[in-house]
């Protein structure tokens, strides 16, 4: 049986990652997810990171981020700033199990979409609001991005090189932290509804979900009054421990020596019996006191080696080591491939895009596996299915909504972002390199026909 959530209907008013990623995973598991957007306001994930970096034609149906976050959803455009649009949404709420959104509370109130209004329409509705700082409180209406909440939660402050300021990941990391917790939150609410018949309001603060994952630092302050310094890649209990350069351009390996036995193994693999015999490095305490020296010595040796070959050699000696994988390493990785982690999704023929592999999800439910993946919807792709099929709207009513731009199939003011040429992006350092035969390589690896 595919997906434990067959029969669950979710209406999503999401944007970017925090809510869309969570609802995507619930869609993977069988829920029907109806994704709202509008032709008036074009989400930035439809305008940037485009297939072939081409902004002509229906570019809004070729955005990488939109496909990445919205598979297994139905697409409905709806202008919620007008009564006719809100009337359609109310009819959808009446037949929905979950309403999920990640706008600010101000927007939710302006649209009349607070939980107390929704439960008038559907008494056992589960509503989830995902915000940067929480649905109430003095910052409730402050917009936020992942990096902003990574900063507010205490994580960014702790992260960085020992000799520098805070460093953040290059992706909106905490958007995912919120999304991951949101999946759990919705499932808790669905289980509670099964027990009691009651819905409820879920208030996800991205900052709180992130702080929940840095207790070591927060408790060191509340209990011991200490702020730990930024430690880069070093670890207070292991040496060597870090990221070391390898042969090639921008190639690296992460190595964590977590026992004296692992240290002896490392010396063996690196061909340095002199290190193994040196009493200054015999135990973890002495290695920690020579940490910088050891890191330099080890980096000198790793620089001669291929990172994947060295990882294999170290792992077969029982040492925790990992090549620092770039995006191509991931897509062609034998382990992830054997587990079917990347799933090939066929795009709508109108897009002109070939089938492409996408990251799936972090879990496998062996008794109720995920549904076969469908691509994110074209703008307005399922307007008719939803309005006629689910809500019983007549052709005439649908035509009226279309004529008034309450629904539609294309943005009213399309504006795509053309990135600089790939040569320029490499020169600027945004990209490490590019390959021209990538499409053929992907087809071969994933067995995709021409």
């Amino acid at each position, binding site marked *: 049986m595919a997906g434990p959530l067959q029969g669950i209907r979710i209406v999503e008013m999401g944007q970017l990652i925090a809510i869309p990623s969570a609802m995507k995973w619930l869609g993977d598991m069988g829920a029907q997810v109806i994704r709202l957007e509008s032709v008036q306001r074009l989400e*930035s994930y439809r305008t940037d990171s485009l297939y072939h970096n081409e902004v002509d034609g229906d570019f809004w149906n070729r955005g*990488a*981020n939109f496909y*990445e976050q919205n598979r297994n959803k139905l697409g409905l455009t709806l202008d919620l700033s007008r009564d006719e649009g809100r009337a359609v949404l109310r009819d959808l709420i009446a037949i929905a199990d979950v309403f999920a959104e990640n706008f600010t509370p101000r927007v939710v109130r302006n649209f009349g979409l607070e939980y107390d209004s929704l439960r008038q329409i559907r008494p056992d509705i589960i509503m989830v609001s995902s915000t940067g*700082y929480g649905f109430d*409180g003095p910052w409730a209406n402050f917009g936020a991005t992942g990096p*902003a909440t990574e900063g*507010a939660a*205490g994580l960014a*402050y702790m992260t*960085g090189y020992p000799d520098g300021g*805070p460093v953040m*990941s*290059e992706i909106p990391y905490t958007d*995912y*932290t919120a999304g991951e917790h949101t*999946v*759990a939150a919705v*499932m*808790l609410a669905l*289980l509670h509804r099964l027990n009691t018949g009651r819905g*409820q309001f*879920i*208030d*996800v*603060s991205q900052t*709180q979900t992130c*702080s*929940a*994952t840095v207790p070591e630092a927060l*408790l060191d*302050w*509340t209990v*011991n009054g*200490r702020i*730990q310094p930024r*430690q880069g890649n070093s*670890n207070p209990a292991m040496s060597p421990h870090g*990221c070391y350069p390898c042969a090639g351009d921008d190639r690296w390996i992460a190595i*964590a020596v977590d026992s004296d036995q692992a240290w002896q193994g490392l010396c063996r693999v690196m061909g340095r019996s002199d290190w193994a015999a040196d009493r200054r490095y015999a135990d973890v305490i002495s290695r920690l006191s020579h940490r910088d020296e050891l890191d330099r010595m080890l980096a000198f040796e790793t620089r001669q080696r291929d990172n994947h070959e060295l990882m294999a050699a170290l792992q077969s000696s029982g040492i925790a080591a990992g090549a620092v*994988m770039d*995006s191509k390493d*991931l897509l062609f990785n034998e*382990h*992830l491939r*054997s*587990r079917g*982690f990347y799933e090939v999704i066929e795009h709508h023929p109108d897009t002109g895009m070939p089938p*492409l*592999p*996408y*990251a799936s999800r972090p*879990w496998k*439910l062996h*008794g*109720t596996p995920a549904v076969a993946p469908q691509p994110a919807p074209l703008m307005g792709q399922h307007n008719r299915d939803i309005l006629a099929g689910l809500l019983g709207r007549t052709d005439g009513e649908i035509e009226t909504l279309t004529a008034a731009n309450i629904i539609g199939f294309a943005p009213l003011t399309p*504006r795509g972002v053309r990135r600089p040429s*790939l040569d320029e992006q490499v020169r*600027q350092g945004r990209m490490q*390199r590019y390959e021209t035969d990538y499409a053929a390589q992907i087809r071969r690896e994933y067995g995709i026909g021409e």
Partner: protein
Amino acid sequence: MPSGALAGVKVIDLTHHIAGPYATKLLADFGADVLKIERPAGDPGRRLPPFHNDEPHHEKSLPFLYLNTNKRSITLNLKTDAGRGILMDLLADADALVENFAPRVMPSLGLDYATLRAHNPGLVVASVSNFGRSGPWRDYRATEIVEYALGGLMYIFGAYDREPLKHALHQAQFKAGTNLASALLLALYHQRLTGQGQQVEVSIQESIASALRDVTNNYTYTGAVRRRQPNHTGDLTRVRAVSDGYVLPNPGLGASVDWQVLVDFLEAPELDDPRFDNPSARLENAEALGDILDQIFAAKQKQEIFYAAHQKRFIYGVIDSPEETIDNPQIQARGYYVPLHHPQLGEITFPGAPFLLSDSPWQLNAAAPALGEHTAEVLGQLGYDAAGLGQLRASEVI
């Protein structure tokens, strides 16, 4: 007191360290009855620093005290027949078994899924491991930094011309733990509808690789391989040092920035320059722009510019230390940090609810258990009297 969403759900918890215990903490804090089964020497997570008052002791690890709230603890040696027998008795009416051993361990203990299902067909068996339960790297060893490397987050994290970085602390473990809770709850929902249990698994590597935005898509869509970004890219939303800390400026998204508004807001006429007033020009003159922005921000104050920005609906962020985030007025107003009395250590202030459920709230009722605190109580319910317990103790089963 309202009951948690998982009232009546019985979880047998074999997990240790961080990822598994965070999953079962999420369940316990929402009302599940979580019975933590520790090896006689205790969960290795009891040795995680920092410690209460810096005293290394298996009852004083602060991460352990956080990760194991609302749970009960018994000790059990699963390498003995008697220990496994007691586990099977406990599993007979359980809803879920959670574990984060290396994948080969459960079968080696005779606790493979087929055996567990035959014993209790409704049981959800939830596992989290470094690389999942199958594949050529199944038995590879990993720590946090290795997961960052192999999950793909490390390559794009850090300075352009320096070694790639990982986040501080144990983000990969927490991320996978959150996902394990979700996977288990999905399976539990199916179990509540059909009576059928199943095996579910989470991979820490895949937890990271699932959350990389368009990094792999850059390659599949254009053939380009993303790397760590240079410091001065013309990007207006990078961390900037101010006189009293750091802020994250964000004047708007990408192409939609109105340059004059930004110049006025920063009170920086030197930016009123055709070299900077459109996105292409900013990319062309990225280094000069970055230098000027660094100087402008160095003269600002964190709170002042943050609130001024939000008055204009710019989505600025602050970068707060642990001390500052705990004192943050928003976080205070939300009552996020929660004091809890520990019988030996007194009051400790913990990070609280990650999310709020209005009808079945998060609750912190009980401090993390002492090692084996509930052994006598739980085994008593299975019918062991004082003599029986003595025997188990003598044969090192408990």
